[in-house]
């Protein structure tokens, strides 16, 4: 009787699941999407048919189309950005007061750890993969990525990675979040001693990190194969766009850096769980730091090179002229790629290593400043006497250059051993690298998100909100991180949940800046989502008037073809939904696209 009951329940559940699957498969499309208009890549030559791309959520779960996977990466990255941003907002509010007032010190340490890992591994790398997936095949004239299914697998490894990394925050008994900071220095992260870091939450975080590394490695192999083998007939090495160059270099860095992180993480997991002693005893802590930073410093360039590519790509479009010294930028990108593997121990100057080795790392760290500075001069020279149009993406590009100069110059000082020994482990370092990761990398991400918004949504964002987002981000970034640089000069050590009262004023300034940043990002999310749903449709394949200045590129040409070949569903044209009181002509021309206004 009991068996029959179970059988009936199983059959019922089976029928229910089949019904759910059938319903999901028949669900209405998320967006207007026609087989010819949206399914094909450049030239529409590969002949997608509707049967190959189901509608509804099944499409997103099964897709191997590079553009869909790009959108998945983008959604994932932005969700992670929101999570990481909320974490740091809580931290900054706690730091208004010198003592422990709002959250516990342990919870602060947990947020500190997860904020770093989330922003670097769950936002930074995926948001770059979003741009690369969507754009590289379009830019190089490929039908799709070289390995579309590996591309899908690489993405689908990321959601479980995020769940593992955040697992300690979920209400699971006996599980606490990792409090190791993102650098996971041993012996703390090995779980030894009287602390609480032997907890399984740390193991899950390490496994999640490992999974995200596997994902990034698979993606990088795919990009290298795609750019080497899938370029269109006319796309020679001399014609390859700067964004694809940076993605190629970044993929090379990932290929050599991430497997090493994976190995180190496995060694650490073995130390924690299986009694190995890789990082125990004399030299163990140094071994971890060497292994970690051999990955960790190239990781910085893994994160910054593609955003540099976005800026090098977008900035000339609104300067009305070609990128100055294009090949300088290409070769300097490659130089950064190589040299980034020779500077890792500048993070370890204060560890007491042999001074001869330290001197060598200083030399290469100073040398790597040159290619970065070359790019900065190229961007400035491109704008010099150009026909600059201050659209939202252009504002973010200029903000990138400005913040990158501050972030870069503060970094050159840190490359010098005597200066580093004084400023090591202070807020100066935090200010320096946040100028780069938030002020530069995130800004370039926003520039790309706004510039290609019509391409991937078919709609236009609200320009006033876009500019409000920029100015709040720019002001917030500079208030927050400049205050941190000053805190560092004053000797405020980093990573602490509490501090001496003498640092209170500057911490409060930094918190005000962070709240300004927070308001800016709320506006961004609102603008991004609402415009996607209700923004005016863009019916022009050249929304930024690039043909006029001879700067029209392949991805917009693809978009133009998509518009021309789109089949209206049921033969009726969808009415463009306008923003409140917005005149379509004006709003779709957008954002400084009006040359006359810009010339004024």
């Amino acid at each position, binding site marked *: 009787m009991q068996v029959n009951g179970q059988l009936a329940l199983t059959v019922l559940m089976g029928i229910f699941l089949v019904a759910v699957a059938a319903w999901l498969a028949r669900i209405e499309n998320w967006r207007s999407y026609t087989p010819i208009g949206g399914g094909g890549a450049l030239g529409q030559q590969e002949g997608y048919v509707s049967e190959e791309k189901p509608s509804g959520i099944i499409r997103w779960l099964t897709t191997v189309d590079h553009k869909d996977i790009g959108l998945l990466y983008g959604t994932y990255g932005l969700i992670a950005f929101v999570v990481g941003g909320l974490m740091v907002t809580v931290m900054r509010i706690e730091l208004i007061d010198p003592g422990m007032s709002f959250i516990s010190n342990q919870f602060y340490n947990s947020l500190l750890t997860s904020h770093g890992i989330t922003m670097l591994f769950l936002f930074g790398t995926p948001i770059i993969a979003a741009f690369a997936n969507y754009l590289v095949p379009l830019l190089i004239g490929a039908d799709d990525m070289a390995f579309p299914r590996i591309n899908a697998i690489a993405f689908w490894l990321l959601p479980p990675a995020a769940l593992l990394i955040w697992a300690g925050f979920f209400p699971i008994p006996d599980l606490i979040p990792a409090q190791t900071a993102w650098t996971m220095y041993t012996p703390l992260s090995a779980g030894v001693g009287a602390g609480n870091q032997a907890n399984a939450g740390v193991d899950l975080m390490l496994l999640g990190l490992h999974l995200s590394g596997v994902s990034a490695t698979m993606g990088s192999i795919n990009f290298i194969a795609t750019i080497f083998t899938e370029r269109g007939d006319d796309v020679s090495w001399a*014609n390859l766009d700067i964004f694809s160059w940076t993605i190629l270099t970044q993929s090379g860095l990932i290929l050599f850096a991430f497997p090493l992180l994976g190995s180190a993480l496995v060694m650490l997991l073995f130390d924690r769980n299986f009694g190995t002693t890789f990082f125990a005893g004399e030299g163990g802590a140094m071994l971890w730091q060497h292994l970690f930073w051999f990955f960790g410093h190239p990781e910085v360039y893994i994160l910054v090179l593609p955003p540099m590519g976005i800026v090098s790509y977008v900035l000339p479009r609104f300067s009305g002229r070609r990128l100055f010294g294009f090949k300088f930028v290409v*070769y300097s990108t490659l130089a950064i790629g190589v040299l980034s593997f020779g500077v890792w121990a500048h993070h370890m100057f204060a560890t007491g290593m042999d001074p001869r080795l330290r001197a060598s790392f200083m030399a290469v760290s100073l040398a790597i400043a040159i290619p970065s500075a070359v790019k900065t001069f190229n961007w400035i020279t491109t704008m010099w006497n150009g026909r600059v149009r201050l659209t939202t993406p252009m504002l973010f590009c200029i903000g990138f250059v400005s913040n990158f100069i501050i972030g870069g110059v503060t970094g050159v000082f840190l490359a010098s051993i005597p200066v580093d020994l004084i400023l090591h482990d202070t807020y100066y370092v935090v200010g320096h690298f946040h100028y780069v990761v938030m002020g530069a990398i995130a800004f370039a991400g926003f520039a790309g998100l706004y510039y290609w918004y019509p391409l991937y949504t078919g709609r236009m964002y609200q320009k006033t909100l876009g500019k409000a987002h920029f100015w709040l981000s720019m002001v917030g970034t500079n208030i927050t991180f400049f205050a941190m640089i000053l805190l560092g000069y004053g000797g405020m050590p980093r990573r602490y949940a509490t501090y001496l009262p003498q640092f209170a004023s500057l911490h409060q300034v930094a918190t005000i800046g962070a709240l300004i940043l927070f308001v800016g990002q709320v506006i961004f999310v609102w603008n991004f989502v609402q415009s996607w749903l209700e923004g005016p449709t863009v019916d022009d394949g050249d929304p930024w008037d690039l043909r006029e200045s001879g700067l*029209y590129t*392949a991805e917009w040409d693809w978009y133009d073809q998509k518009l021309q070949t789109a089949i209206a569903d049921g033969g009726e044209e969808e009415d463009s939904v306008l923003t409140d009181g917005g005149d379509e002509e004006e709003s779709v021309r957008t954002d400084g696209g009006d040359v006359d206004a810009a010339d004024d």
Partner: protein
Amino acid sequence: MANKIFDRDTLLDLTVNVVPLFIIGFFVVGFVVLAPFGIDPLASAIQFGLLAVPFVLLAVLTYFAGRAVAGAEHSSDVYLPGQASVRGAEPLEEFDDTPESLERDQTNAVEGETADDAADDH
């Protein structure tokens, strides 16, 4: 062939990577001449290895990248980057493979070599 690819413009483009090479070279010489922390077989070997390896890798990568880019410029149409697959895009420089142009290239190459030789003589 190498001279034809690494012409004056290409060499000028590659100077961007010569600067970091020079900086590394400067420190190598400095550490050899001054040796501020003394010489120890293991530590000094690692010290110079840490400079030599990036130096050599950067030089090799710069050479191959320059050869790939400049070689492509000399053997196919050159478009504005990102524009090659745009419908109806006009190349910035058209690849000319007529016998006259090849002859002209060879003449230029010979002249270049002659000029180099002359410079060497001085």
